[in-house]
């Protein structure tokens, strides 16, 4: 007998199946292939299917590859922290200080540059940060500095480009968290004698922390995996993991090594995920 529940389950399976198969075919299988590839080797001009960990050993023994991992982690952590610290007050100001009917507009303005192409945005920063660029000209013109700041082609430039992007992203997510926080929590705290700072510290901040963590994790993932910004803004003064991966892919034609480095990158992201896992649950309304 087909009970209603069984029919329901069958329908549910039929609905989930396409996405599952899709994910399997175009996400899980590619990942497996990449993992397999990472165990092969580039020998001379050929890829040979010997199964060993020599790519990983190489990675661990070559300081310039290991260095790329460290650069990646340092830059990503720096970017994540700076972005959160910059975005939170802005989101707070929009949510709390801007009149309600203007909040959408304020938010739209805060993310407007989102709509320039990502590649173009990095390029635009090179123009801003160049030795004779807008920033230096303006600062010199204003008499604030005598010699142009040397920001272009440095880690500072990379971090600036990243922070620009993620401040927008985080302002959005943190704002969304702030406005969905029921007003009664803040009222209750104020009612019990908390001043504005105490309300923020004891109530608003802890209650928006999960949202911040989600945003921070998103920032981490997107930042550590990005190739464009460091490539355009970093001036090759140092390399991050994605740049090294792309080098293996292009100049080195070493797909196995690229795959191995990708697995390393994946491991870092997974570690970050585990670190924030308890804030990253997907809930239904």
């Amino acid at each position: 007998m087909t009970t209603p529940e069984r029919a329901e389950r069958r329908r549910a399976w039929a609905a989930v199946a396409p996405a599952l198969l899709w994910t399997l075919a175009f996400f899980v299988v590619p990942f497996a292939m990449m993992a397999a590839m990472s165990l092969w080797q580039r020998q001379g001009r050929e890829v040979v299917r010997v199964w060993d960990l020599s790519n990983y050993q190489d990675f661990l023994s070559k300081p310039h590859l290991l260095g790329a991992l460290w650069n990646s982690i340092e830059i990503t952590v720096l970017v994540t922290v700076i972005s959160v610290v910059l975005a939170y007050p802005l989101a707070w100001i929009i949510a709390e200080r801007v009149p309600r009917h203007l909040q959408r507009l304020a938010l739209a303005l805060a993310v407007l540059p989102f709509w320039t192409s990502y590649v173009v945005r990095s390029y635009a920063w090179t123009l801003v940060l160049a030795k004779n660029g807008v920033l230096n000209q303006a600062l010199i013109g204003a008499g604030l500095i005598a010699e142009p700041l040397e920001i272009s082609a440095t880690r500072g430039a990379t971090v600036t480009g990243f922070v620009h992007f993620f401040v927008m992203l985080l302002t959005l997510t943190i704002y969304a968290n702030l406005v969905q926080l029921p007003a009664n929590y803040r009222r209750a705290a104020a009612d019990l004698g908390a001043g504005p700072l105490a309300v923020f510290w004891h109530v608003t901040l802890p209650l928006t922390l999960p949202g911040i963590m989600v945003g921070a994790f998103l920032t981490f993932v997107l930042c550590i995996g990005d190739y464009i910004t460091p490539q355009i803004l970093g001036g090759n003064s140092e390399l991050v993991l994605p740049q090294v991966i792309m080098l293996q892919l292009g100049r080195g034609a070493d797909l196995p090594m690229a795959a191995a480095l990708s697995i390393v990158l994946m491991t870092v992201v997974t570690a970050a995920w585990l670190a924030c896992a308890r804030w990253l649950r997907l809930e239904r309304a």
Partner: protein
Amino acid sequence: MTAPVELVAITRDFGATRALDGVSLGLSAGEFAVLLGPSGCGKTTLLGILGGFLAPSAGHVLIGGQDVTALPPARRPTTTVFQDYALFPHMSVAQNVAFGLRMRGMRRLARMARADEMLALVGLQGAGTRRPHELSGGQRQRVALARALAVEPDVLLLDEPLGALDLKLRRQMQDELKSIQRRVGTTFVHVTHDQEEAMAIADRIVVMNGGRIEDEGTPQRVYLRPRSRFTAAFMGEINLVPARVGGAGDGHLLLETALGPVRLALKGDLSAVQPGARLALGIRPEHLRPDEAGLRIPGTVIETIFSGTHQRVRLQPSPAGPPLVAHLPQGARVAPGEAITLAFDPAAAVLLPEA
């Protein structure tokens, strides 16, 4: 720990809406006052103005004789229990209760001891280490109460604190609220739109409607002698019979009604009532009883509905007028279509404006 409250001509506008319209009200220290009224009548607005979350457009708030109109919530001798409890979800129950004390700079040990005391007061001994989400609705309600009382406010404000509870729990919490209020002696201002709840707990009921106070007084006064048609109908089912003043004098008023002439004894000055004036006579269903002394009303039964403690009977009075509702004892044998004579004691009826 307790203080009188005085609202002076409070008006509050939201854009074009006038949520409160010249509300004046005095409450004694230690009183349990209930603001009762339909949705949108301005109860929450009034409570917000008392608590300092809203500023009045005009008028003053005095607590313990001091004008607090300009003070923020944190500096008023009031605390609020919110309908949704607003317990801090990231703190334990004890931390919630101790929050106000912490803001006042009380030491950890001292405030935790006090939190335990407060939890005991509301019957939640030992629940201090739990998180709000681990509690049932009724338990959360108690925590919210304990948190608000912990800072020893002069006035406790409660905005439909029982609205989210199911009926049984609600009736039970009413009793507890009342007994806690008696123990602490704090002035309670409690908002509800449930008139049974209001009667069960209030020392004084303040009936609101459309931003104004319609009536105020003890539950008995407001139920049995309502000052307005609105109050009369809001406090419970009532039959309103149109009446015309035939004459007055000798402490009595002579009314012409569809049910026949009614002689009503009234206290006070009758000269204000003009002969010919149109009024309404309010008769509660439980005051219409079979075959008793008083004014007799013959009629025909339209419908009987068994309601447990009584039978609810609708009948068409023979003289004329709109159908009446009467509560008859369970045992009364009445059936639709049957003729029946009921009676009521004019002393139990109440005279109300026509509309």
